[in-house]
């Protein structure tokens, strides 16, 4: 074609082009890219579930949002963020994630008694321990809930003597959320499709839920159980990016990667 032989084919950087020396210098300067080694490593950590590599702890981003940045680990941060309502809801769920709480409750009997009372105070009648976990989890899996349960005393002490009505409403809402998640969790093993529907409903109803981490964990479990591992891996990547300090991240990673070993 005629335009292939035209002057347009001469790149600005090439000799004989009509670009000025200044323009050529400017173009050349654009080749001096920053060293992206750290960024690539960070990206690799995010994408670990897809790349089939052992996930490394995500490196701190330049904005300092990475796990462990500033000497504050994700678990401690999560503990600070817990409200009494969320704690109660979490504990309802924790009854479902029996293996997660198992080791903790054995080691911290007094706290576990408080836990039960706190849950009953919220009202869910299904606070009794749920059937076994979707997959056997080791003691080390208790990392996430250890944070929540062991923070119970602190949270209770910090709560005002009479909670405002708004807080009560909030607690009620969270308990309702927790029940929905509980129902979904119970179906993960035998009816992962139904579990996913319930979890999707929860996400539509509570898009900014404080229990988003729990929901994500159950969703990943259900996806794996449903044989949708690739989808689970992608979702895990997004979870790692959006919640790098979530106490559920380690368990979620094991849930997605576990079956591959």
């Amino acid at each position, binding site marked *: *074609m005629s*335009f*292939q032989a035209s002057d*347009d*084919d001469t*790149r*600005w*950087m090439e000799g004989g082009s009509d670009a000025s020396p*200044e*323009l050529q*210098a*400017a*173009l050349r*300067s*654009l*080749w001096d*890219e920053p060293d*992206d*080694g*750290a*960024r*690539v*490593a*960070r*990206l*690799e950590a*995010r*994408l670990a579930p*897809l*790349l*089939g*590599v*052992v996930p*490394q702890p995500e490196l701190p*981003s*330049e*904005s300092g949002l990475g796990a462990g940045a500033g000497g504050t680990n994700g678990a401690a941060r999560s503990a600070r963020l817990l409200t009494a309502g969320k704690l109660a809801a979490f504990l309802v769920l924790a009854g479902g994630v029996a293996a997660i709480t198992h080791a903790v409750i054995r080691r911290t009997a007094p706290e576990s008694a408080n836990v039960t009372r706190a849950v009953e105070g919220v009202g869910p009648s299904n606070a009794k321990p749920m059937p076994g976990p979707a997959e056997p989890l080791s003691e080390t899996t208790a990392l996430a809930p250890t944070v929540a349960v062991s923070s119970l005393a602190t949270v209770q002490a910090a709560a005002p003597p009479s909670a405002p009505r708004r807080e009560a409403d909030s607690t009620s809402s969270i308990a309702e959320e927790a029940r929905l998640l509980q129902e979904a969790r119970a179906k993960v093993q035998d009816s992962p499709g139904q579990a996913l529907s319930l979890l999707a409903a929860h996400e539509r109803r509570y898009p900014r839920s404080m229990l988003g981490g729990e929901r994500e964990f159950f969703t990943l479990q259900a996806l794996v159980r449903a044989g949708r591992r*690739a989808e689970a*891996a*992608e979702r895990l*990547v*997004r979870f790692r*990016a959006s919640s790098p300090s979530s106490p559920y991240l380690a368990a979620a990673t094991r849930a997605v990667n576990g079956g591959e070993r």
Partner: protein
Amino acid sequence: MASSTQYDDVSLSLALGDGACAATPTLREVFRTQAPFVLRILRRLGVPEADLDDAAQDVFLVVHRKLEGYDARSSLRSWLFGIASRVALARRRRASARNEVPRADLDPLASDEQPANGDGRIDARALLLHALAQLDLEKRAVFVLYELEGFTMAEVATAVDCPLQTAYSRLRVARELVRSSIGRKERSR
């Protein structure tokens, strides 16, 4: 690349993007060989530094979904560029829908200030970046691929998924706009 992960020893002929790799590469291979390219392209397409990690992640999520459909008829880099440019465009549209104003500190291409060195001289690089920022993504993509990435025009047309003649047309217009933008800046000194 400084990476903590040890990869298997894999054939990396695909790194050249010459389409010579008979088998579909794995995501790991694509990442290992092309991650710097993806980051560079996103940056040159105007994705702000602060958004690069998320944008690159989105690119590789798409690659993960579509890799099976990659048939090696186009070069790997052309194929990746197509994905990266769509990701960049989508992010730009989302930012626009949210009425986000690009921050000059994050996107050096967005500043209307006179790009200058400390001594007051016009920084040619900043001028060029500013000029590129004035281009729409279609023209900018053609310019970047041809002038900076060294693609042939046939590869450019494949990467941006348009007829060859259209690619030439975009290149011509992009060059005119870049020259014009730089000229205006220089005259306004």
